[in-house]
């Protein structure tokens, strides 16, 4: 457990400084189509969604996908809600295929290009008409009920 936590900590540090590490470590060649199938077969989709868009687990794609060293270290060593995938359950090649799939997921449309999302309203409520307890307090909301 302690080792795994340490590994997670290392991975987290790598996330913070991921840009430099990413440049140093190239992901092995992978097959995106095969990776998509593996992503579903080994159950990544259960927490991250079929597209890697996130769900119970965080979003993995579309990019930027975390650098390969961070990504692979996390998958192999995490001990939190997501248990580690050993090579017995996921070979190095399969992991590389998944990585290829995630990096190939096309970018999502910008929210601004989706009218449905842009129509979503902002703050609810009405301007507050009550005398607030202290001068200058923000006016937020008056109950409408």
């Amino acid at each position: 457990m302690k080792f795994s936590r340490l590994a997670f900590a290392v991975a987290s540090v790598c996330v913070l400084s991921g840009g430099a590490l990413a440049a140093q470590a190239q992901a092995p060649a992978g097959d995106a189509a095969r990776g998509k199938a593996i992503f579903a077969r080994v159950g990544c989709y259960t927490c991250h969604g079929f597209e890697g868009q996130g769900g119970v687990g965080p979003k993995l794609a579309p990019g930027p996908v975390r650098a390969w060293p961070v990504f692979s270290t996390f998958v192999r060593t995490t001990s939190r809600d997501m248990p580690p995938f050993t090579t017995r359950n996921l070979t190095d090649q399969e992991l590389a295929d998944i990585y290829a799939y995630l990096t190939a997921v096309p970018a999502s449309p910008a929210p601004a290009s989706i009218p449905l999302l842009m129509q979503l309203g902002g703050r609810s409520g009405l301007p507050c008409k009550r005398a607030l307890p202290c001068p200058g307090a923000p006016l937020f909301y008056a109950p409408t009920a």
Partner: protein
Amino acid sequence: MSGSDKQPRIERRQFLKGAAAAGPALAAASLVSPQAAQAAQTPAGAAAPATMAVREQHPPGTGQPLAPGYVVGGDHMTDCLRALDIEYVASCPGSTFRGFQESIINYGGNKKPEFLTALHEDSSVHFAMGYAKITGKPMAAMIHGVVGVQHASMAIYNAFGDQVPVYIIAGNLLSEWGRRPGAEAAHSSTDQAQMVRDYIKWDEQPTTLRDFSNAAARCYEAAVSGAPGPVMLTADADMQEEAIHEDHKADLRLPKIGRRIPASADSGTVQELATMLCNAENPVLSLDRYGNNDKSIPLMVELAEALQAPVIDTRGRMNFPNRHPLNVSDIGGPYLRNADVVLAVEPRDLFGMVMALDDEDVRTPRPRIGQNTKVVRLGISHTSQKPNYGGSQRYAPADLDIQADAQGTMPALIEAVKRMAKPNFAARGERIANQTKNLLERAKAEAAYGWDASPISTARLCAEIWDQIKNEEYTVPTETNFLSSWPQRLWVMDKYYNFLGRSGGWGVGYNSAAAIGAALANKPHGRVTVALAGDGDFMMAPGVIWTAAHHQIPILFVIHNNRGYHQETMHLQRMANRRNRAVTTADIGTTIKDPNMDFAMMAKSMGVYSEGPVSNPVDLRPAIQRALAVVKRGEPAVLDIVAQPR
């Protein structure tokens, strides 16, 4: 009940009447003067003991039709329900309450209370839960002796866990003397409430008709008082069918329930709490089962704004407007860690509010709060807990435990806080507002991920629905965590009935059935009820949509079809992974596919408008439009949406 043969035999009612008549007669002979015995046979209004008079006026117990001028126990029971203002009786029929049911229909005219036909006792209780969360008052769930109680028990557990008043009436045949062999004997018990007593607030089994109204009243009071919950009133079948002369019906008192004033904290305690909150640098309000009526949210808004303090809504109910600038529910972690005072309002489980526990090999709790954070619990939601069944995790003490109704305490607390408010509150409020102002934009960006995916993303599903109900008064009566809480992130929710919280016991089947009860309660208000129920949940109680069709209950019933009990798929995958064994088998026993179900066809077979399976996001909008048109005609509509797991 009577047979066609002419052999003399003792039948249940006949024997009961004979015994009942003989008993008081003997009593009168031995204990009461002749004058008193004579008085016992006088009509209503006389001073004679009612029970005695009633029993001596029984018609001959020959199995003949009810003699003119007589009514039955079930009629009185019906009057009792009416006196308690119970509008509906949800029920899957059972012979142990046939006498009561017939009375409700033919004596009571099937109005207040009206029968709501359920196809499973579990659904009856869940209907009542959804209804109570909207109306604040109990619906009765009438369930069959023994087997009905067993069927209903999981839903009763949900109601207990969620602190929802449900008035359960269970049939029974207490006296073994007249039980027929087979079903009647099997469906009778000496103490059937024992099965569920660990998770009901109160139960009674009156043994005389005269006692029935008292028992009915006590059960009602227990259901709605303090932390609400389910109660069970056992209605004996003999009593339901017992005949009484209508002149004596008035001797049987009806229950009367007066106004209830919840206990609020005393002024000294309120002042102490206000002082703590106003002196705190970083107070946090954390809300669980607080928002239960139309006054709840405005009061909490007033308190939060008086303090300019951040609010975390744990979504046990709809507690606080989701777009309010002080609502930090989705970014609450840092606020809790930095808090010097946390006011936990109506928490069911304080430990879960202040500590985190991940699903790891070794479960070590992580504090959500700082070492020196003072925790104040305000509420009564924890007071109904019982030892055998959980709902709570480890024990977590409060530094100040104010056992008073939170909403009842709000007005005094708000006033006290306003009197002590400090100028620096304003800056705190501005700071929080700056941190929350981009939450919606962030949600939009995240909703765009997988926007065009098939299966359809849950974000897209929720956005498409919202676009078509945003100008309606609406209720989401179902749990939203299975949809990544997208309604809370994308919609505008600011009324207590916009969202009804969770099941209470995480018992599957709640969502689909509770939604129907909520829709029934919403019907007179013209609110649109939008159920977002999982396919697994729906298959626990598919008959609920038949109930909606039969009773013309309008509801947009969206099946979030992820083809499985997805939570369990994740669990199995996690187990296999943790044990370094095959992770590709997590769908065994957890998924609902091969073959895929056709929920639209299922709904059609029950007379319900339906469409699906819809798996292309482009088809969502017109499908929702058509379904909503049906709902606005006053009917239910089902959409089977093949969607992402969460």
